[in-house]
């Protein structure tokens, strides 16, 4: 089984996000691996462990710091890692998806995994776009993948604990919501060992696509930090809450 995992390096939302002009001030944020990508890597490694094969992790290097992430992926069980050197922290999902699709094209992937979403997917997620560029079907919200021959059984999650089982013929792209098991922990000693021994294949971006969005403004949402207080007697408070819930379709 040949599994390719496409990952996204994104600004960490653990910190406050400073804005410069009409976008994030990329110079003063830390970049981290998108949290759902951890699940797609785990899902890929689980399949490899179950049926054999290779896992290739590929991502766009936006700020020259992707190596750490790729070493981590190797420590978690990836066999091969590839970085697309872009050096453009503002590269949007469309661009990244295009470059990734071009890089993945020649890899002979049976399955391509991506995180179901990322917090900076302003112009959509890379998973469905890679599918569109590679002309493969896409299925997102995936909570488990089992490979059987040239098709896979894929579980997709809906709201409220419901879900559905699909049979998908390969090759396809899946947006992973959660791996069946929590992503494994890679001990730092192993990551460091990878950093010393592993090689990262480097490719240049090829292809061109764009989000087609003109940025008008970017700012922290107004009025965060404190609840909007509902005043009045208990009865009035109750009435206002019920009204609020009704307006949001929650009561």
């Amino acid at each position, binding site marked *: 089984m040949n599994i390719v995992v496409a990952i996204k390096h994104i600004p960490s939302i653990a910190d406050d996000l400073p804005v410069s002009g009409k976008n994030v001030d990329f110079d003063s944020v830390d970049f981290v691996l998108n949290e759902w990508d951890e699940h797609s890597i785990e899902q890929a490694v689980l399949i490899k462990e179950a049926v054999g094969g290779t896992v290739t992790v590929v991502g766009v290097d936006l700020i020259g710091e992707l190596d750490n992430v790729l070493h981590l992926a190797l420590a978690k069980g990836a066999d091969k890692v590839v970085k697309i050197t872009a050096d453009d922290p503002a590269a949007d999902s469309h661009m990244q998806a295009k470059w990734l699709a071009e890089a993945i094209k020649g890899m002979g992937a049976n399955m391509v995994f991506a995180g179901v979403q990322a917090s900076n997917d302003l112009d959509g997620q890379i998973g469905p776009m890679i599918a569109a560029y590679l002309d493969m079907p896409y299925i997102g919200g995936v909570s488990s993948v089992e490979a059987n021959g040239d098709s896979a059984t894929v579980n997709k999650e809906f709201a409220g604990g419901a879900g*559905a*089982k699909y*049979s998908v013929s390969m090759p396809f792209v899946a947006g992973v919501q959660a791996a069946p098991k929590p992503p494994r922990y890679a001990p730092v000693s192993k990551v460091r060992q990878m950093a010393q021994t592993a090689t990262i294949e480097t490719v240049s971006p090829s292809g061109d696509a764009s989000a*087609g969005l003109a940025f008008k403004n970017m700012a922290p949402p107004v009025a965060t930090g404190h609840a909007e207080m509902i005043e009045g007697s208990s009865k009035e408070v109750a009435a206002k809450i019920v009204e609020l819930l009704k307006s949001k*379709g929650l009561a």
Partner: protein
Amino acid sequence: MSNDILVITEHMDGKFSDVSFEMVGKARELASALGGQAVAVVIGSGVDANVFASDSTLHIDDAALSGFNPEAYAKIVEALVKEKSPKAVLFGWTVTGMDVAAWLSAKTGAPCAAYAKDIRVDGGGFVVSCQVYGGKLMAEVAPEGDMAVIACLAGSFPVEAGQGSTAATATASPVDAGSLKVKFVEAIKPAGGDVDITAQAKLVSIGRGIGGKENVELAEELAQALGATVSASRPVVDAGWLPRTRQVGKSGLKVKPKLYLMLGISGAPEHLEGMKSAELIIAINTDKKAPIFNVAHYGATADLFEVAEAMLELL
């Protein structure tokens, strides 16, 4: 090229989700500003499609599509877009809409704006407010070109504005279900046992302010009236007033419901860890300095018993 707005609605078990109505309502507003039509698109069978306040409703009624199929939906919408050349296609930024919106964008070359909280018309085009970076930033973007794909966060617009009774026109699916690579096999129902609070859309969560086991019933009643489930902070569980499966927090479960109504919970960091990404947090606490008010979206300094009883009367 038209000024129409297509709304890709979504439904499960014969019921449309709220976001479908929200989008139809918004689409009407946008379409009338642009001089086009709001077209609700219903894909799949086993659902009454005559429930929208749209200008028209298109029902692609195919028994082969009774379960959601991302590939089929994508191809159908692609065909519709070719046929209708709309000004915008609205999706919900939901487990189903998310599968199609960005795909359509990449396939057609139309821009996509996701995590949309608001859309307005501006000089013949749109300006979309998107809640990105986990809600830490709001981005305002203007999609360029003839058509925009916009994926809307649930709860962004009022539901009522989209509710109506426009008669749907049924059409056949332009896609041959047999040629699909993705096949729907079966639905998976939620697991049995005690309720899984992580899978609930609405939670009424009680803390030590509830005072005793005998008062849990009041919370249960309120939850029932709201169609919600009762969850709790750790002291409530430690005291044995509710089972451990209901505990939210660091040493309990992490939840992300649409509604988290908190009664008598102070908002310790260990509790916040489990619920801070809930979409709507409302906190009732007698202590106006309770730290939960720094996190909740709405709060009230009030007695939880009085508020709960008053709410029960209104529901």
